């Protein structure tokens, strides 16, 4: 029996943590260092820290801040946001992160994956795919915090970045983000069975049941934001992680 990774997602912006709904209207939820200390205490499996506006605002990672945050994390931690080249990636690894997450830059320079993977290994490079459904029910991949439609098909894009060497893929639903309505189970199923690397389901989780359903659909790990930073849907901020939470397969 394998233990499924359950990954709190922390959205960073100018030193604070925020939570969005459908990638918009970031609500302040607290201080990142404090949050990481809570997740240590509760023994969360892994953390995902995303400076979610870095690419759209054309900013570099805030190395000083993210180093402070990484110093407090005694679990694996991935960072994404504003990484544009191998030098940026190196600086992020040197801050103490295990993995880096690439998204918008891949549409300009897909060979960056190989450049980084050749040094740090594929397992250190995560590709994030933000998807949104159009009026005709077709999914497209978006970049720059969901502001640019790349026109790409999620499955084709997943296979393409797998081929280029990412070690895992985050499949993130823009429409479901912050809604507590569940993941994109259909798309998880479609894509996870056609790639050989682990897929992390993200965007929309509202219950442990959603985690189980994502795993049944084929996800190797599950990520969630709202569930770990709010008490309940439309209720106040409460950063926590249930210590008895364990999903196996």
């Amino acid at each position, binding site marked *: 029996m394998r233990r499924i990774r359950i990954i709190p997602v922390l959205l960073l912006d100018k030193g604070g943590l925020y939570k969005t709904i459908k990638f918009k209207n970031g609500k302040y939820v607290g201080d990142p260092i404090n949050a990481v200390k809570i997740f240590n205490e509760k023994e969360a499996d*892994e953390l995902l820290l995303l400076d979610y506006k870095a690419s759209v605002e054309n900013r570099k990672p805030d190395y000083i801040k993210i180093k402070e945050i990484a110093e407090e994390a005694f679990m694996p931690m991935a960072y994404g946001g504003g990484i544009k080249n191998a030098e940026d990636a190196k600086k992020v690894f*040197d801050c103490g992160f*295990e993995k880096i997450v690439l998204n918008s830059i891949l549409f300009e320079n897909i060979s960056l994956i190989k450049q980084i993977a050749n040094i*740090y290994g594929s397992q250190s490079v995560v590709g994030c795919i933000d998807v949104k459904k159009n009026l005709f029910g077709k999914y497209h991949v978006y970049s720059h915090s969901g502001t640019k439609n790349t026109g790409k098909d999620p499955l084709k894009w997943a296979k393409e970045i797998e081929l280029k060497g990412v070690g895992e893929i985050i499949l993130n639903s823009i429409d479901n983000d912050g809604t507590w309505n569940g993941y994109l189970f259909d798309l998880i199923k479609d894509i996870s069975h056609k790639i*050989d690397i682990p897929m992390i389901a993200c965007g929309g989780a509202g219950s442990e049941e959603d985690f189980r359903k994502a795993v049944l659909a084929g996800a190797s790990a599950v990520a969630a934001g709202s569930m770990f930073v709010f008490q309940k849907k439309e209720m106040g901020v409460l950063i926590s992680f249930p210590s008895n939470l364990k999903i196996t397969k």
Partner: protein
Amino acid sequence: MIAIINYGLGNLASIKNMCKLVGIEAQITNDIKVISQASKLILPGVGHFEKGMENLHASELIPLLDELVLNKKIPVLGICLGAQLMTKHSEEGNVDGLGWVDAITVRFDQSKINGLKVPHMGWSEIHLTKTNPLWLDLLPEPRFYFVHTYHFLFENKEEISATSTYSYDFACAFQKENIFGTQFHPEKSHKFGMKVLENFNRL
């Protein structure tokens, strides 16, 4: 003082951070003088085996490390790629390692893995196969964070100190005299990892 060997690969900051948390004096270094005076060594590493050996050779630290580990018997802990580098050879890049333990490094066997995805990434319980000072007072059902595509394959099974399971059982930790290695990342494994590092420091 523990010297965390810096050969340009791996998450050195994480190891130092956890050492600091549990009150272990540690220094990230590639300085021959500092390494020579260390009471213990940690050989970290994340990444490609071939690149790891290439960097170690380029650092010109190998003769010193051989001397400290094999002759002076200074305790050394290899973590992840650092532990793999202690084996004789790896399929990753098809190059020779330091050869300190009687094992080679091989890729997860696709034919035995039952459709599981590689890398093996996440938390897995380990099964202690022999008493080992690093396992002292370890909490029940110890679990650790793994992320790897290759694993140790021991010629001499006596050197295995723990196994884990990913579709099939594989050696995930070893000890040969003063030489310790873990495939998992104690520095990223909460209280379980803290205990292992504390135990190593106490040797």
